[in-house]
């Protein structure tokens, strides 16, 4: 089992100490403010369906662009204008998983969603956010030549 990327581990540690829901929200909104939509040289509307995250209420899309060093740069689009949590997760993934070894990205456990967003998010929201991460991990496995479960 590969380690998970160090940048993500550090961020998760920051969130582990958050117990107050307002503090958590403030941290996540700060991340969401950093969200940058997929640039047109990577993808333009209408986006291809194979990049569409299934069952994400926020209509999120994920792309992974090969880098020369063997890593991936992740890009996102969030079509729901009120999809703030999806934007926050997209910014977090880009900041902590882009440019990291694909085998490590593939090893990220889905329950980081609860560490980041709290255990009391709705089932639908949890599934949508996990769906975004699942697509990121799918691209990472492809890049690392790992089998899909």
């Amino acid at each position, binding site marked *: 089992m590969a380690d998970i990327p160090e940048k993500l581990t550090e961020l998760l540690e920051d969130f582990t100490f958050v117990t107050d*829901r*307002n503090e958590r*929200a*403030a941290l*996540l*909104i700060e991340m*969401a403010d950093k969200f940058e939509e997929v640039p047109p040289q990577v993808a333009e509307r209408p986006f291809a369906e194979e990049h569409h995250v*299934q*069952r994400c*209420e*926020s209509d999120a899309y994920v792309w992974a662009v090969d880098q020369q060093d063997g890593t991936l740069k992740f890009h996102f689009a969030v079509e729901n*204008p*009120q*999809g*703030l*949590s999806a934007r*926050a997760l997209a910014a977090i993934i880009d900041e902590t998983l882009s440019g990291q070894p694909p085998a490590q990205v593939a090893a990220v456990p*889905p329950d980081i969603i609860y560490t980041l*967003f*709290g255990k*009391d*998010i*709705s*089932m*639908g*929201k*949890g*599934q949508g956010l*996990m*769906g975004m*991460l*699942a697509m990121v*991990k*799918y691209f990472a496995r492809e890049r690392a030549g790992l089998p*899909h*479960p």
Partner: protein
Amino acid sequence: MSGIETRGYVRPEALVDTQWVADHLTDPRIRIIESNEDQLLYPSGHIPGAVQVDWTADLNDPLSRDYINAEGFQRLASHIGITPDMTLVFYGDKNNWWACYAFWVFQLFGHTNAKVMDGGRLKWEGEGRPTTRDLPQYAATQYPLRQRDDSRIRAFRDEVLKHVQARGQLVDVRSTPEFTGERLHMADYPNEGALRGGHIPGAKSVPWARAINPDNGTFKTADELRAIYEGEQGLSGSDEVVAYCRIGERSSHTWFVLTYLLGYPNVRNYDGSWTEWGNSVGVPIER
């Protein structure tokens, strides 16, 4: 003018438009309540003076799968500074989906002086109306202890089973793939919340958001709603209707539509919904 009163609703007083809310922002008899699916939205900006009621953190019992009890509701009401004579106005994201859910839970406790803001956050923001990140401060109130009444608008599994056996009316408001039981396998997904896919026998499929105009999140007119629920699906207000979805959130939206906009006298929300039914041993399922 949004024309709520021109849309033919049976109980139009259950809705207010964004202008009405804008005109009552500082009215001490009104409390504006935001309830969202996305927990980041309220802290990122809300209608000035609005309080937040979060369904998981505020409306659900933290231990048992149930809603808060009388004492819990009293604490919540005190915390958001309401009294029984105040008018509550609910709004939120996703076409007021969670706003209707919170509205429904408040009805379990009998706070009938309640309304939904037509169009929700989407319309308010779309009209360029003000929002703030400032958290309002209201003095705690003394709200009387009221027992939760689960008998009128809430349905439990065994009641639904009897309702099915009596060939009662059911409306399944989930998406079509959920209704048909089609599985969407994706790696890394947690389980879908149920061991079996499909729907409760006899249920009509009307995905909840069909009641909404997608461009601005407002409710369709009564004629348009009747064309869907009655003309197309053959539902009728003359007999009881049970609405369900996965955990009872989307179906509270349909409960609101049938109860207030179309005036059905006997609509219940089965909040156990598919996460209970699809996991229950021995209950009938249709695909």
